[in-house]
């Protein structure tokens, strides 16, 4: 399956070296290329789904077919009939890594997942192509009633709980790509944290696209019950191929009264991936929802994690870092909707553009009528490393009440000649100096990450920066 790459292509992809390896797998089932009713029915058949889910998929397919492509954001040059929508890599899900087929286990070994699991995670899901191939959860958590499973299993094993929330935060009609995901979704995480249960260590999912022209459409649903808390972390990578692949996830989060959820994403897609993801959370009374979103790589990312503050006292915080390099467009941002009084929202967005990369911040702050005394603050800073690169800011603000506090600060800076000279005059190389300045720029966000991810984030930035300065 692996395509030969030329020397110049190899140079270009050198930056994502660690992730740019391909695994030869046979797979147990691959749907035909393209999307139609037959493919959707086939996916539903293989998964042996209840009728309501099959109908959900088929209805969503109709919506997908009717909806035009979005006219804003980035240029999407995708042939939807030239993509594989479903690829099942193995027959069963492993409960230990020994149960996972060797070549796939090897992939996750290289990505360091089993090692991280031993050290600092409370549970892990690993998805390869369309299916979750490994899952674990600490025993004491399952005894407390915590559910952490792949979403397909949840359809079978927790049908009532799942059906109560599935598609309620992001209905298929939300946007064209949410409809596409709803039609062909496979895998993703399902988490339920019962009332008052605090999960101390993060739960992690890792999404790996391996095959060429592959579409990955995971579907994640997280329910944090009253007074409970969880930190969920996802990582995403793919190797480089000559044709584009598509990652289009839907993530729905429900944070009930006094509960807390932090959702951290560090993605480092190869730069031929279209990453078109819909993420939204509902936060109820005095609950807190935080999105921490690190976007590196991909050809085009369009992603705007959202928090709807549904009841008084809810808080929504979004921290986002976007890094775009040659041939990449990060159209990333955030949405905060204040639907109740005394709700508080904050967006901190940092973007870096280099080697002709383009980063856009696109954000919405909406205060509904009746959301008295709400507060919202947006800070977005862009750093541009060379004249070929570009940064844009598209802030949308809709305020339906008078007695609210809304703040918006935006800055765009270029790496200053004086900063560069200062570091060089102390013996640093140009790329060490610019890496240091960039890492300094995102430091306020990186320090919010768990230590291991902060180290990884800094390493990724370093990889992106190496050889970036002529």
């Amino acid at each position, binding site marked *: 399956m692996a395509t030969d790459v030329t020397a110049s292509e190899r140079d270009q992809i050198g930056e994502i070296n660690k992730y740019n390896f391909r695994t030869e797998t046979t797979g147990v089932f691959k749907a035909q290329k393209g999307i139609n009713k037959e493919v959707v029915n086939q996916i539903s058949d293989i998964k042996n789904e209840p009728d309501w889910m099959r109908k959900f998929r088929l209805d969503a397919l109709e919506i997908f077919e009717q909806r035009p492509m979005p006219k804003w954001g980035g240029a999407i040059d995708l042939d939807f009939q030239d993509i594989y929508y479903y690829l099942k890599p193995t027959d069963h899900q492993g409960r230990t890594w020994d149960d996972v087929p060797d070549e796939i286990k090897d992939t996750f070994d290289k990505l360091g997942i089993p090692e991280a699991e031993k050290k600092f995670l409370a549970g892990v899901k690993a998805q390869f192509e369309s299916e979750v191939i490994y899952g674990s959860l600490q025993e004491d958590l399952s005894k407390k009633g915590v559910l952490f499973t792949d979403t397909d299993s949840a359809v079978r094993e927790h049908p009532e709980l799942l059906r109560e929330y599935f598609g309620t935060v992001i209905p298929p009609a939300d946007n064209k790509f949410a409809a596409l995901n709803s039609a062909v979704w496979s895998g993703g995480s399902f988490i339920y944290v019962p009332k008052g249960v605090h999960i101390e260590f993060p739960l992690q999912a890792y999404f790996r696209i391996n095959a060429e022209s592959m579409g990955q459409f995971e579907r994640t649903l997280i329910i944090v019950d009253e007074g409970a808390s969880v930190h969920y972390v996802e990582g995403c990578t793919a190797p480089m191929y000559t044709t584009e692949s598509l990652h289009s996830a839907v993530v729905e989060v429900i944070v009930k009264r006094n509960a807390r959820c932090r959702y951290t994403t560090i993605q480092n897609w190869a730069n031929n991936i279209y990453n078109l993801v819909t993420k939204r959370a509902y936060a109820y009374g005095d609950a807190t929802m935080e999105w921490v979103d690190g976007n590196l790589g991909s050809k085009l990312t369009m992603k705007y994690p959202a928090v709807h503050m549904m009841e008084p006292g809810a808080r929504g915080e979004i921290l986002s870092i976007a890094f775009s390099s040659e041939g990449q467009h990060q159209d990333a941002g955030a949405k905060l909707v204040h639907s109740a009084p005394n709700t508080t929202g904050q967006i901190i967005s940092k973007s870096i553009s280099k080697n002709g990369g383009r980063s856009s911040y696109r954000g919405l702050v909406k205060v509904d009528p009746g959301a008295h005394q709400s507060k919202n603050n947006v800070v977005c800073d862009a750093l541009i490393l060379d004249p070929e690169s570009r940064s844009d800011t598209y802030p949308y603000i809709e305020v339906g009440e008078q007695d609210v506090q809304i703040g918006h600060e935006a800055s765009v800076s270029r790496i200053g000649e004086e900063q560069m000279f*200062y570091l*060089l*005059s102390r013996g640093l190389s140009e790329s060490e100096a610019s890496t*240091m300045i960039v890492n300094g720029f995102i430091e306020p966000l990186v320090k919010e990450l768990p230590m291991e991810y902060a180290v990884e984030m800094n390493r990724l930035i370093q990889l992106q920066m190496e050889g970036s300065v002529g």
Partner: protein
Amino acid sequence: MSDAPKHQLKIENLHVSVGDKPILRGVNLTMGHGQTHALMGPNGSGKSTLGLAIMGHPGYEVTDGSILLDGEDVLEMEPNERARAGLFMAFQRPVAIPGVKMADFLRHATTNVRRPDRKEGEDLIPMREFRKELKDKMQHLRMDVEFARRYVNDGFSGGEMKRAEILQLAMLQPKFAILDETDSGLDADAVRLASESIADIGGREKMGLLIITHHDKLLEHNPPEFTHVMLGGRIVETGGKELAEELHRSGYDRIRTAYPEAEARNQEMLNEETAV
């Protein structure tokens, strides 16, 4: 006397322009191993320009002349190569680098300067060894260890900035250091501490010092073997310690009168500076 190599920094006929404007017009200055030179002169005479040109600031174009460090052509070197070759400048107004911790920055700098051939990505000085040395030097400079965790020059007071520059001097141990008004903006106690520290570092490391100053304290602790007076982009007079003392006592009136052409150019440059 040890058998260690003797270093020399030799500047000949140096002409430097900023944009299209000539600032330095033929500067000659030779510094021997471990020597202390005072560089004095009224505002706008080109003292900082000389320092920045020696370090290779991209905004300062050398149009003629040469700078040799132990016979090596400094003008062929990038600023980081100059640092690795043993040149250092304590800046008058060092720039802030938000988010970058002093310790992290200094560990990279120290490693590169001590191992000039280090390739990028090769190991840094081991953390434990570096921390110990940094802590020792900071204690010596009576700096709070907390300082190492702060971001480079970010939100520093004037005095903190100057002390941070002196700390870098102490860590990097250059062959030749240019100190650009490292005593300005400090109160009397801080000036004394800075002066003593520099004398201590310079003396221990046998460093050549080119001290740009308007005050006498720094030179009291670091008595110069030579004093150079700059006016209108040239060194118009060179003397010993007594010349610095005279200028502190009586100011630049005698110099301005003695070198009318240079004085006219100096006024011209000052006017252009204020016009910008």
